């Protein structure tokens, strides 16, 4: 499904990723853990096509299609989803208008029937309920004045609506209290599917109590330095990131 091979990437002339390889198969949940500055967020940005994040070497393919050959929106339409650590606020564009445009674009690309306004409203309201967001949020500007937790739940709701194949969750747990974390994790778990896979980027092990990964990878200085099962996360939590340097 998603194959990353020897990926090097730079941001403003600074090399951040230095030969990262990872293969994610359908239905798998991979956790990527690592200290601040190890390149965790960069990975999500490079794969999703953010301007200024440039892949200098290596490859990344989604269902054998070269990601770097596609515009950011094409990557999204091909089934890649990034849930942001800091979703932007867009006053003036209503959440509903945004979600409709997004779902329309993705469905059109995937040659699915467009949803009419009524059907879409119904769907959006359902998803709101699933992530415990008041429906009033649909009328507000995108993320405008949302709390940290509300923004994250909005991200998860978008993921539910777009039904992507590969979901990258970038520090979705940061800044969440335990109740919000539970809601977000429930949302993610509800989306788990034999055909859908997840990359969960996190600094803390806590999230992995709620979303249990199949694999845990440790990222350090732009490379994966250790991989293992879910128990690796606990070991990391216990020994701290300093332990990696001794590996």
């Amino acid at each position, binding site marked *: 499904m998603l194959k990353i091979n020897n990926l090097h990437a730079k941001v403003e002339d600074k090399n951040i990723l230095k030969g990262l390889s990872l293969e994610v198969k359908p239905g798998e949940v991979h956790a990527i853990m690592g200290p601040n500055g190890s390149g965790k967020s960069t990975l999500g940005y490079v794969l*999703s*096509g*953010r*301007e200024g994040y440039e892949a200098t070497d290596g490859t990344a393919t989604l269902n054998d299609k070269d990601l770097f050959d596609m*515009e*950011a*929106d094409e*990557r*999204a*339409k091909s089934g890649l*989803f*990034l849930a*942001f650590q800091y*979703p*932007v606020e*867009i*006053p*003036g*564009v209503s959440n509903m*208008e*945004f979600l409709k*445009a*997004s779902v329309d*674009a*993705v469905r059109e*690309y995937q040659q699915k029937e467009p949803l009419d306004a009524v059907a879409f409203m119904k769907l959006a309201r359902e998803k709101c309920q699933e992530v415990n967001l008041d429906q009033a949020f649909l009328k507000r*500007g995108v993320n405008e004045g949302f709390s940290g937790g509300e923004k994250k739940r909005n991200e998860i709701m*978008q993921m539910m609506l*777009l039904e992507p194949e590969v979901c990258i969750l970038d520090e979705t747990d940061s800044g969440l209290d335990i109740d919000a974390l539970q809601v977000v994790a429930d949302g993610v778990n509800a989306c788990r599917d034999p055909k859908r896979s997840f990359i969960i980027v996190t600094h803390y092990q806590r999230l992995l109590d709620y979303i249990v990964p199949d694999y845990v990878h440790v990222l350090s200085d732009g490379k994966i330095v250790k991989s293992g099962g879910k128990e690796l996360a606990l070991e990391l939590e216990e020994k701290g990131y300093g332990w990696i340097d001794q590996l």
Partner: protein
Amino acid sequence: MSFTIDFENRDQLDLPALVSKPLPWLKEKQRLAFEQFKSAKTPTRKIEHWKYNDMTFLKGQSFTQSKRANESVLTEVNGEFNQITFEDAIEIFIVDGHIVSDISALRSIEGLTITNFNQTSPAQQDIINSHADIELNSKNLLANLNEATLSDGLLIEVEPKKVIKQPIYIRHVTLSSENPAVSNQKIVVQLAPSAELTLVEHFESSLDDSEQLALQQTSIYLAANSRFTHYRLNLEAETARQVSQVKTTLDRDAQLNSFYLGLGSKLNRTDIETIHAGQNAECNITGIYLPANEQAIDYHTNIEHRVPHCNSNEVFRGIIADKASATFNGKIHIFQDAQKSDAQLNNKNLLLTNQAEVNTKPELEIYADDVSCAHGATVAQLDNKSVYYLQTRGIDKQKAKKMLSIAFVQELLNQIKHESVRDYLSHLLDNYMVKVAN
């Protein structure tokens, strides 16, 4: 008869020769205006008033006055131009500066009188004369030229306590068979105490490449406790040039709500004068300007708080595309006696390209010491992070830019009270943004 104006040698021009069908009762004001016109300096960028306008086209150019089209032209106009669909409105056509609709045949509505300048009674003529503010126009020779050569105009009056539900929908159309041509006319609005009226002025021009210069003035007097809603939509062709003024005087407790839209035009210069002349008057002035290609749109606004306890709230937003330029000059003048004035002014601009230009100049002149005033102006470009965010949700770059641009002015559109105007403009903006967000 039509006149020809050579701006370079205007001191040799003779007024009687210029006015085709003179209005004898306006003669004295016209003579004064004409003197101002002759003595005023030719607009150049060295004069502050014209600093941001390219007026070089006046140099060495002679303009012929537009001829009056006959009523049959309206069939063509109706076919060619998009109109706002009102449930119920009184529609008046002004083509090339001439009132083409038969005013006497308009449906009569109780409390509302619409009169052609050449059909006015002596009392009405006094009203029109009281609106000729020669001093106010002293800096603007084109305003004076308009005043001096007026032969066509409309007086709109509302009687005390009459609430006119039907908007008056004036369609200013420039077709201009002559080339280069100048057209001129004036609208005078007089609201009696506690009267209410909505006026929609819609400017359009045909898509030819003619050199047109449209001069226009709308002058409004709002008596005590009256309410006036004014839309002024400039949707002219690329080649159009318009220099116009809107002047509103508010007596006590009067309320003005106005909305401006500027789109198209090689030159669109609108001077908006708003005068608080009675206590507790209130004005809300909003506007959107959207120049593209090599267009230039300029709004010069001046709000005068002459008496205490008045409010003014002014918000203008602009999106400037391609190599276009925009100017916003927002002045607030608070007189010494105008204590407890509340004046808010805000101007935000979005530049879509590196070559787009905006000149924004808020000006406060405050002589009272107990007032609340705030002004702010910003210039920004589309936020790359927002574009990227929308892209990661499958929305292509062009659509993302379009959504963000519309969002920039959406708030002002949402405030438009008349649904038919709001719908018309939403559609228009949607189509326009598809073109410029490339």
